[in-house]
């Protein structure tokens, strides 16, 4: 029983990581109907930004917060560590938003009128570019992410056979994913920006006829999506302290599968799909053959597309002539 509970915890925490990536994926897809293959690479850039920020400025920030909270720079406190983490995440989000803006402006916007296939190919090109440029820029060896939460002990329940372990960082990721989803939902359904985004997503031309600045809205969506990827990158870097230039491609694809599972373009669906995928992977690893784990996400994707292409929470859109 404890074993099963542990799988559920593992699955939810893994799902949280997917959810963070899938949120950005689903937003961009929702508005442009584009699989932004480069999203996984933006995630990687976020992780590297976080790595270098915490490496070069992390101690200074941590010291400042420690002084503010405890009066001494040396006394470590979990509160200060969390605040530092948030600062680092914000830095990464800003950098990734800038990257997302540039990618959209330089590579995707000029192609908006051309067939969607061209956009897709460009996205593949951008993704390959970041992967390979990243290897040259950062080096291809894996980097260790500085450990901010060194003193943080995992929460344990039960003992020996029935030990259940929860890593506070995993909880942090989980809560962030849910919070971001709620914020996004609010933005999309209860703000002017969100209304504009929905309008653009529904029909570009009609939206611009209604006086909506489509270009700005799309750019804003891209920046939001990319900053989410950046946040995801830092959080994954903190939880799994290993950062490398190719870390984005497979989680990116899996997160996309999760987004499709939940209903692409739907933020609640993205999070739901991610948790389902995370749980499925954890249970497969535990009770089945983990050697097929990489294939699981794609199998789910194919099945869902065959059975219910709109995803679990998606709405069917019929294509008109």
């Amino acid at each position: 029983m404890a074993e099963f509970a542990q799988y559920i915890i593992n699955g939810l925490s893994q799902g949280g990581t997917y959810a963070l990536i899938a949120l950005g994926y689903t937003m961009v897809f929702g508005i442009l109907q584009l699989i932004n293959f480069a999203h996984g690479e933006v995630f990687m850039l976020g992780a590297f930004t976080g790595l270098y920020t915490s490496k070069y400025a992390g101690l200074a920030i941590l010291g400042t917060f420690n002084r503010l909270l405890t009066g001494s720079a040396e006394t470590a406190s979990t509160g200060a560590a969390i605040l530092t983490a948030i600062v680092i995440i914000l830095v990464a989000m800003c950098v990734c938003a800038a990257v997302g803006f540039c990618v959209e402006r330089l590579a995707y916007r000029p192609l908006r009128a051309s067939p969607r296939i061209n956009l897709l190919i460009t996205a593949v090109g951008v993704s390959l570019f970041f992967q390979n440029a990243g290897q040259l820029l950062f080096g291809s060896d894996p980097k260790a992410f500085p450990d901010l939460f060194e003193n943080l002990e995992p929460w344990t329940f039960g003992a020996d056979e029935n030990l259940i372990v929860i890593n506070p960082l995993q909880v942090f990721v989980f809560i962030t994913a849910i919070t971001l989803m709620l914020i996004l939902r609010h933005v999309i359904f209860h703000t002017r920006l969100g209304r504009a985004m929905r309008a653009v997503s529904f029909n570009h031309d009609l939206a611009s006829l209604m006086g909506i600045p489509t270009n700005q809205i799309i750019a804003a969506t891209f920046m939001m999506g990319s900053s989410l990827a950046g946040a995801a990158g830092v959080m994954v870097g903190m939880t799994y302290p290993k950062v490398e230039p190719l870390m984005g491609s497979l989680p990116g694809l899996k997160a996309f599968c999760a987004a499709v599972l939940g209903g692409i373009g739907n933020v609640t669906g993205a999070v739901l799909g991610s948790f389902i995928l995370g749980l499925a992977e954890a249970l497969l690893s535990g009770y089945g053959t983990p050697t097929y784990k990489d294939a699981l996400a794609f199998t789910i994707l194919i099945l869902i597309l065959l059975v219910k292409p709109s995803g679990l929470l998606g709405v069917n859109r019929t294509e008109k002539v």
Partner: protein
Amino acid sequence: MAPSGSNNEQSGQTGIMSLRWWIVGIGIVWLLNAWLPELISPYFFQIIVLAGINVILSVSLNLVNGFTGQFSMGHAGFMSVGGYLSAFITTSLVASHPELMNDPVAGVVIFAISLIMGGIAATAVGYIVGLPSLRLRGDYLAIVTLGFGEIIRVIFLNTNAVGGARGLSGITKFTTFGAVYTAALITVFCIWRVVHSAHGRILVSIREDEIASTAMGVNTTEGKVRAFAMGAFFAGVAGGLFAHYLTTLNPGTFDFNRSFEVIIMVVLGGMGSISGSVVAAIMLTVLKEALRPLQQLTGVDLRMVIYSLVLIIMMLARPKGIFGTSEICDLFREKLSRRGKHPDGGSA
């Protein structure tokens, strides 16, 4: 727009596309097969052979991505199915009947059969992958084919009969220049004939407007699945040639980066241009080697960065690729007709 029309149809039967020219071509290939290794350095010879395999891959993918307008990203998967099956057939035959190796004719026959078997297996897989395309289009199809490619890779990774992660090695080196280019010529010929037939126009109509084409009574589903299966067949043959050239296979060789590579070739050459795919496949294979001095100069390998930039810039500056949807001979014909001559009679 596609250059579909009676003009092409005619040239398809009377011009360079008539069968006898291709038989002559295959004859030349086998003549070269005997002479070429003596003539040029093994390095260039090897590049030429790999370029030939890439030609098969890119032309066959063009049938799906270019002519039918279905974006497949799983070509490496089909290639691996063909490669593994044909390699498995020859290695187990050679292991159980080593005497066959002494007979060159038997070797060639076994190799040819194994290639075709590999192609058929890939076709079967292509048919299965093609089925989702009944319901999916565009980006969804792209990611599903990519997913299938990955699933196939994971399956090979877990199949101990073909070595799993340790790969299949000790494959006999059956692949020769002649074999590769014969297969390449046959591929180009078959696909040319298909796209310039009534079937081909069905495929092009699916690309141009699937809904309108359905409304016109075209069975788009059948067309798409056929395109998939045929593309997969030749990818499987290419995989077999690849396996028997490299003499070792590993599941990691067929990850989605290889599919991307073929896509780059198709896009660069022009989606819907067979000669474009041929030219781009050769160009990119050669370019990869031509850029090696740059690596020795700078100390870092910039090739993939350059490749990805080429892909992006190509999409921005000339999204239709080098040739667009026209063929090399179309360009000739255009030139001739501009001079006021009549374009008929297979000018090439």
